[in-house]
């Protein structure tokens, strides 16, 4: 079979394998058993950095400049340690805001500005297009080399025939792959697991192929490194390559290229895609940050040997050094090895093109086409998700055709490396806006816009236009004399700076202008509310609560159903329904379709849309359905101010009202107490006057009888006089008791504390009240006997207490059946006595009042009961004064027990 057919067939078959692998990856992702959740796969996918430029171009560059090819890989090496926190922060930001491209990242950071997003997208296309063209060129060249040389044997000096059609077919095939795995559905995170699997596989293939050819050349064609380097050193033409002298531009160029590569590894659209967007787990960075540099080391290990071998073997310089990787095995007759090398190169090119076009298509559709569409047609009725996918597919195809066109027009005249480095310098223009943006909240939208714009203008002037001039597109005088003959504008010697090589020169001027403008404008700019919120959101992404940034922005009204309908237009009704249901369910919200959407839901919808159409467009769309104005910062601050003031006031008010309530309650209690006291006083007075009047009336009545009836018999007179005396005694007792009580309550009572025995006191009280019991025929049983109950107390007062209790008991007992017992008490609390009767008992509601002044149980018999109603009150006061306790236990119908306990200790005073 002819090589004419084998190479294209192998290419198609290889792409078929990629399809199958990507399909399997997507299948596993759909099943939730992701293959991509793996740090090694993540690392290998980052190796999409190594394109056909690395694969063929590094050798080409090494063949003429020695170590000059290395900065492209030393840059990522130096950047890798910073991944841990710089990349980690970018991933956290992208995840929090559903950012899916580098243009969206910048636009989102600077107030979700559609203009900035569009600008970045446009510049990315201009900057990266040559890079895509480069890959097409590499594949086409390698296939032609393979076909021509293998078909006809290696004919030295035979210039490789560039088949235009080959590149075209390759472009279309790659577009197909990118479309199939990059735009199958709209997803919030825009992650493509199948694609990542395919890319990781390609990274293995290209590494394996390159190592194979390296080993073959070093140990097959030569006798190891020593032999190869020794022979190269012997060659005067190659000796220079061993030192730094061969590096064009010297150390300055070395430094600027390293710097460009440092930026490129983060900010090339495809690197952003695999590093940030396709990142499955932030912890994968940990392995990637050392494993990826190791991968780079491996794939570069044989670049210098192959280059030197090529120079030694094709000593006449007939072979393009960019093709050494292929032509060396062909020269040695290793056709199958050459085929493997070709497949490796195909891997490098396809990987880059696929990821780059997918990343660009998201960018172009979200940040360029959709904002324009939405600007002119704000009302959509249909489901737009299909349209968005079509746009993206169209964009991918368009990009590859554009790349092909570029390749046809300009690519043929330049070496691989010089094209690639132009792209690197282009994406480096985004570095200030992104890196300052995620660490400096003060960077403003106008600053970023000005910086990127000026950076790009300088880049175009100093790198892009000169490359056109060198290709013959522009007059050569543009380079030699400067535009319009202005020497100070000479593209490669701006303002007469001739110190550097063109790349360093361009990097210096463009980044100086870029950063200078960004910082300067930002310092004198006033940010809008959205800008400030987004800036804080980005800079403080790791702070808890920082994620709520979006929620303060929308203050208008929108119903849930309107919001859902809007989102459905872009991601499809079923998906929207699922997302909303999930969101609402997860937060346990209860939302009717017509209810006002809470700010959080609006923010969620905006993020969801951001995933599908980019932050700027999402903002425009949300603002089209939210009725009401976006708050400006002063509005927000005022609102916050007012709210906090209101909160403060209401807190103070609450406190006051609590105090007031407490005061009211106290007042009420005091009032009740006063009323009670007042009532008691009235009762007291009426009772006292009643109690006083009764004996007084009797005394007066019998005195009058004695005065008016002089003829009364002596016995009668004697009887009446006794009544008068008894009533007078009663009066005296009443007055004494009232005075006693008043004395006790006012604290003027004199106390004579001494050692007393309660048993003696009980006996004395029994003796004193014996007459009372006898009169009423109530039985009194002394169960204290001579039990020893010693304590410190006022003897007379204690006797009074017991007498009062006994006379109270006898008062309530029935004549003849009445029984009163007196018991001793000895508990932990103290010692005391209990007076138990079998009277009618005290109803529960009165049990707490029996010790009140003049309280007499309102009983049918009450009026007939003798006594002042002060006896128990006096008892209570006396016991209280002794730090004791007196209480009553009673069962209605069975009798009452009056019990007191006194502490054993000494009562002072």
């Amino acid at each position, binding site marked *: 079979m002819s090589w004419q057919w084998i190479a294209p067939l192998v290419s198609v078959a290889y792409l078929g394998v990629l399809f199958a692998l990507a399909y399997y990856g997507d299948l596993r992702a759909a099943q939730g058993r992701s293959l991509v959740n793996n740090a090694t796969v993540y690392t290998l996918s980052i190796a999409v950095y190594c394109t056909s430029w690395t694969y063929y171009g590094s050798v080409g560059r090494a063949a003429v400049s020695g170590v000059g090819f290395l900065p492209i890989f030393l840059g990522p090496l130096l950047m*890798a340690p910073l991944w*841990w926190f710089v990349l980690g922060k970018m991933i956290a930001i992208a995840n929090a805001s559903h950012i899916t491209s580098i243009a969206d990242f910048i636009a989102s950071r600077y107030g979700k500005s559609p203009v900035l997003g569009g600008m970045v997208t446009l510049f990315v296309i201009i900057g990266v297009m040559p890079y895509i063209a480069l890959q097409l060129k590499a594949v086409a060249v390698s296939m032609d080399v393979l076909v021509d040389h293998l078909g006809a044997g290696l004919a030295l000096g035979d210039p490789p025939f560039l088949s235009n059609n080959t590149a075209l077919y390759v472009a279309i095939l790659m577009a197909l792959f990118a479309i199939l795995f990059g735009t199958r559905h709209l997803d919030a995170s825009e992650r493509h697991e199948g694609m990542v699997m395919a890319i990781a596989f390609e990274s293995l293939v290209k590494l394996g192929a390159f190592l194979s050819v390296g080993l073959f050349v070093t140990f097959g064609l030569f006798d190891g490194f020593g032999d190869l380097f020794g022979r190269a*050193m012997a060659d005067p033409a190659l000796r220079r390559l061993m030192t*730094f002298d061969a590096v064009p531009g010297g150390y300055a160029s070395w430094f600027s290229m390293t710097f460009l590569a440092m930026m490129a590894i983060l900010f090339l659209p495809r690197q952003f895609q695999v590093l940030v967007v396709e990142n499955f787990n932030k912890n994968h960075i940990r392995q990637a940050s050392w494993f990826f540099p190791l991968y780079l080391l491996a794939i570069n290990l044989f670049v210098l040997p192959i280059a030197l071998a090529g120079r030694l073997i094709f000593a006449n310089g007939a072979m393009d050094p960019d093709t050494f990787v292929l032509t060396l095995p062909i020269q040695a007759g290793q056709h199958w090895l050459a085929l493997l090398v070709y497949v490796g190169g195909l891997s490098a090119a396809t990987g880059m093109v696929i990821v780059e076009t997918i990343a660009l298509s998201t960018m172009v559709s979200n940040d360029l086409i959709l904002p324009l569409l939405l600007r002119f047609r704000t009302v959509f009725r249909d489901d737009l998700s299909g349209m968005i996918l079509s746009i993206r597919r169209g964009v991918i195809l368009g990009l590859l055709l554009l790349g092909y066109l570029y390749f046809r027009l300009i690519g043929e005249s330049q070496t691989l490396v010089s094209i690639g480095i132009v792209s690197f310098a282009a994406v480096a223009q985004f570095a200030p806006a992104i890196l300052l943006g995620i660490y400096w909240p003060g960077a403003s939208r106008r600053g970023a816009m000005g910086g990127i714009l000026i950076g790009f203008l300088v880049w175009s002037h100093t790198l892009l236009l000169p490359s056109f001039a060198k290709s013959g597109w522009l007059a050569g005088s543009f380079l030699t004399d400067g535009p319009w003959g202005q020497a100070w504008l000479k593209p490669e010697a701006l303002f007469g700076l001739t110190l550097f090589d063109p790349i360093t020169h361009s990097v210096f001027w463009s980044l100086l202008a870029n950063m200078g403008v960004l910082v300067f404008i930002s310092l004198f700019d006033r940010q809008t509310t959205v800008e400030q919120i987004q800036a804080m959101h980005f800079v403080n992404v790791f702070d808890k609560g920082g994620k709520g940034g979006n929620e303060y922005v929308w203050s208008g009204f929108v119903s849930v159903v309107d919001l859902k309908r809007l989102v459905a237009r872009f991601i499809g009704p079923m998906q929207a329904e699922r997302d909303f249901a999930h969101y609402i369910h997860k937060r346990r919200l209860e939302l009717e379709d017509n209810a006002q959407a809470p700010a959080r839901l609006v923010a969620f919808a905006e993020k969801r849309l951001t995933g599908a159409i980019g932050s700027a467009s999402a903002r425009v769309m949300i603002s089209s359905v939210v009725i009401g104005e976006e708050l400006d910062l002063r509005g927000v601050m005022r609102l916050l101010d007012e709210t906090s003031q209101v909160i403060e006031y209401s807190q103070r008010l609450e406190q006051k009202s609590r105090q007031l309530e407490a005061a009211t309650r106290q007042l009420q209690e005091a009032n009740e107490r006063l009323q009670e006291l007042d009532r008691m006083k009235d009762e007291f007075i009426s009772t006292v006057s009643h109690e006083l009047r009764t004996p007084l009336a009797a005394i007066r009545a019998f005195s009058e009888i004695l005065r008016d009836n002089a003829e009364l018999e002596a016995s009668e007179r004697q009887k009446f006089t006794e009544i008068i005396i008894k009533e007078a005694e009663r009066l005296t007792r009443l007055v004494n008791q009232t005075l006693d009580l008043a004395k006790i309550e006012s604290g003027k009572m004199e106390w004579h504390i001494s050692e007393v025995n309660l048993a003696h006191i009980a006996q004395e009280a029994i003796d004193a009240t014996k007459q009372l019991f006898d009169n009423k025929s109530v039985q009194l049983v002394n169960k204290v006997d001579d039990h020893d109950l010693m304590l410190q107390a006022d003897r007379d007062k204690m006797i009074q207490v017991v007498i009062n209790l006994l006379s109270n008991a006898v008062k309530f007992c029935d004549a003849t059946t009445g029984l009163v017992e007196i018991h001793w008490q000895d508990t932990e609390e103290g010692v005391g006595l209990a007076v138990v009767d079998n009277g009618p008992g005290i109803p529960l509601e009165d049990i707490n009042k029996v010790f009140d002044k003049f309280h007499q149980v309102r009983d049918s018999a009450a009026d007939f009961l003798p006594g002042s109603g002060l006896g128990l009150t006096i008892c209570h006061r006396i016991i209280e004064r002794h730090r004791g306790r007196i209480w009553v236990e009673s069962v209605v119908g069975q009798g009452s027990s009056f019990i007191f306990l006194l502490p054993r200790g000494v009562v002072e005073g």
Partner: protein
Amino acid sequence: MRACGHNGGLLETFGARSIAMSPLKRRQERLVALVVLGGLALNFPLLSLFSREAFVWGVPVLFFYLFAFWLLFVVLIALIVKGKSMAKE
């Protein structure tokens, strides 16, 4: 210095502070230092010291230095990011 109130002793204070400074912060500092080291080692003037037409084990000095430093750098990154004192984030 807040820890001072709790722990009293100066030593304990410093101990508490280095813990409070979070291992992530320490790692970040080490990584930045590593980048500075790499930037210096891979540029003028240190690089010029190795630009000689001589061999180390059959390999030109410049090539040998660059690739050896590369490997060392990778090992250092790996040691720092995988350090066992670092709590898993």
